[in-house]
């Protein structure tokens, strides 16, 4: 399946991916309206240390530990390979957050957990982080 990959060689740490992610998942049509005076809570996070930067989001593992760790059956691996969360079932126990080795699941403002679902069902229709990356450091491809 096509996944989002990051090449740290080209990641500038500009954090545009975080803002594009937050906007894509805001449900709004204007970035200013969606993000002005808001502390964003994106599903992709840029990690920086010693001059290296790297954007991290869900790897969509083939054998996902988070799904196994979910006590409520809210996380599931769909047939298309995408791991999605059903926020009507999530009880906010943080088990998945603890289990994910990449730190790619985090609580949302609503109290339930959120994660990258590749923007396939939001307004972007394709990963917004990839579309907006100014240096093609983030790619969406089959490997």
């Amino acid at each position, binding site marked *: 399946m096509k996944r989002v990959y990051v090449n740290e060689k080209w990641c*500038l740490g500009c954090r*545009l991916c*975080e*803002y594009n992610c937050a906007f894509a998942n805001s449900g709004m049509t204007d*970035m*200013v309206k969606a993000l002005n005076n808001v502390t964003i809570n994106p599903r992709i996070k840029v990690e920086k240390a010693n001059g290296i930067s790297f954007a991290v989001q869900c790897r969509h593992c083939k054998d996902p530990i988070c799904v196994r760790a979910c006590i409520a059956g809210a996380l599931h691996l769909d047939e298309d390979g995408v791991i999605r969360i059903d926020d009507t079932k999530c009880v906010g126990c943080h088990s998945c957050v603890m289990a994910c080795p990449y730190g790619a699941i985090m609580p949302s403002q609503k109290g339930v957990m959120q994660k990258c679902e590749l923007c396939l069902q939001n307004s972007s229709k394709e990963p917004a982080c990839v579309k907006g990356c*100014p*240096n093609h450091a983030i790619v969406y491809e089959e490997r």
Partner: protein
Amino acid sequence: MAINFIEPLYEVVRNQDRCIKCRVCENQCSNEVHRYDSDLKVMLSDETKCVNCHRCVALCPTKALKIVKSDNCFKENANWTQANMTSIYKQADTAGVLLSSMGNPEPLPVYWDKILINASQVTNPPIDPLREPMETRTFLGAKPKDIVKDKSGNIVNNLPPQLELSTPIMFSAMSYGSISYNAHESLARAATELGILYNTGEGGLHEDFYKYGPNTIVQVASGRFGVNKDFLNTGAAIEIKMGQGAKPGIGGHLPGQKVTADVSKTRMIPEGSDAISPAPHHDIYSIEDLRQLVYSLKEASDYKKPVIVKIAAVHNVAVIASGIARSGADIIAIDGFRGGTGAAPTRIRDNVGIPIELALATVDKRLRDEGIRDNVSLVVGGSIRSSADVVKAIALGADACYIATGALLALGCHLCRSCHLGRCNWGIATQRPDLTKRLNPDVGSQRLVNLIEAWTHEIKEMMGGMGINSIEALRGNRLMLRGVGLTEKELEILGIKHAGE
């Protein structure tokens, strides 16, 4: 503190209603113009540091930024302009030679813009490049004087070494050091994909790029930086740089801060030392010396590579070119006074040299008058800005064009003309690793390929319009050009008629 006489030229205008404080502008500005004030919870800017490179403007996700010319002004004076006054203040402050980058920005005549191209009507059909072959393949190099046939009447191939280009455009010299590794990789990969050539400039060739040798012109300049036997034999051609359009009469200067470990290894000079190439080649004080260097390089490369001699367009360019055409050189490259540079003294850049259009016209004519035009090919550069400029240059008599500023623009350059500061926000004219990584060669090479392919399409459209289906039939075809608003003398030098004639 002494009074600061230098006022910022630009204002950073931020639409606070649109700013979402993502701080991309802040983290992308190597000049440290932008900062976030956590008390006020707004982005602020320090305009004294802004060079107007547009990195922040281009990356702002909500388009909240623009850079405008400051309307702060001195009392109006047509003679003592703000630029003239500011220069005085700078020099009174520093006692230094004023430095600038990229080509001459002064409002001197651009002859390309006063030349118009012909098209066929009625007596001769235009040709449609989408439906008929339209050829742009170009060979550069000296042509044999005589045709030799063997006993059975077959022509013997007695061609001196040639360069073959898919389209008559090449990337001109920019050294590794003045521009980044990634910029070089972008140029090398694009040239290879396009079937054209790029040029190492006087900075040697990084070992990683030897594989692009068949599409590389290696340059030998007065500093001899990075020149060795492998270097000479790796390229498709060897260029002797006698001069550069942006700074005729002086050598190059790469500041020590750009001479990083990798650059120092490639140039074969100590790390951190200023790389200063002399004004002349100290083994060339006249034309007969040039001939010796041409043949030394041919000897070193087994007579397999064409030798290019690059000169700046200066007043007596025609006789200089005539001398070079008899020196054994295969190709003459002429760089006009609007050509770019990574660093040049401002006064030289803006006041020395002549326009490439006039230089080209007069050189082509002189070589023909002397019957030696076939001895050499002519390549011209020094602000070729579009496919139309290429068409006009070829119709004036060039075999091919060199572009560099245009190529850098394709890579993201916004002509802020601050290359000499080494803080290029677009990752081009810098060696700082956090900045050079901003130019991903996957992206850069593709953009260069796009540019040259687009220009080639346009060249074909214009050729087709003229009823010409092969680029060689355009070369020197000055009847295809007309001047507008030019004096009799200018028309005479350009060898073209006025529109309406």
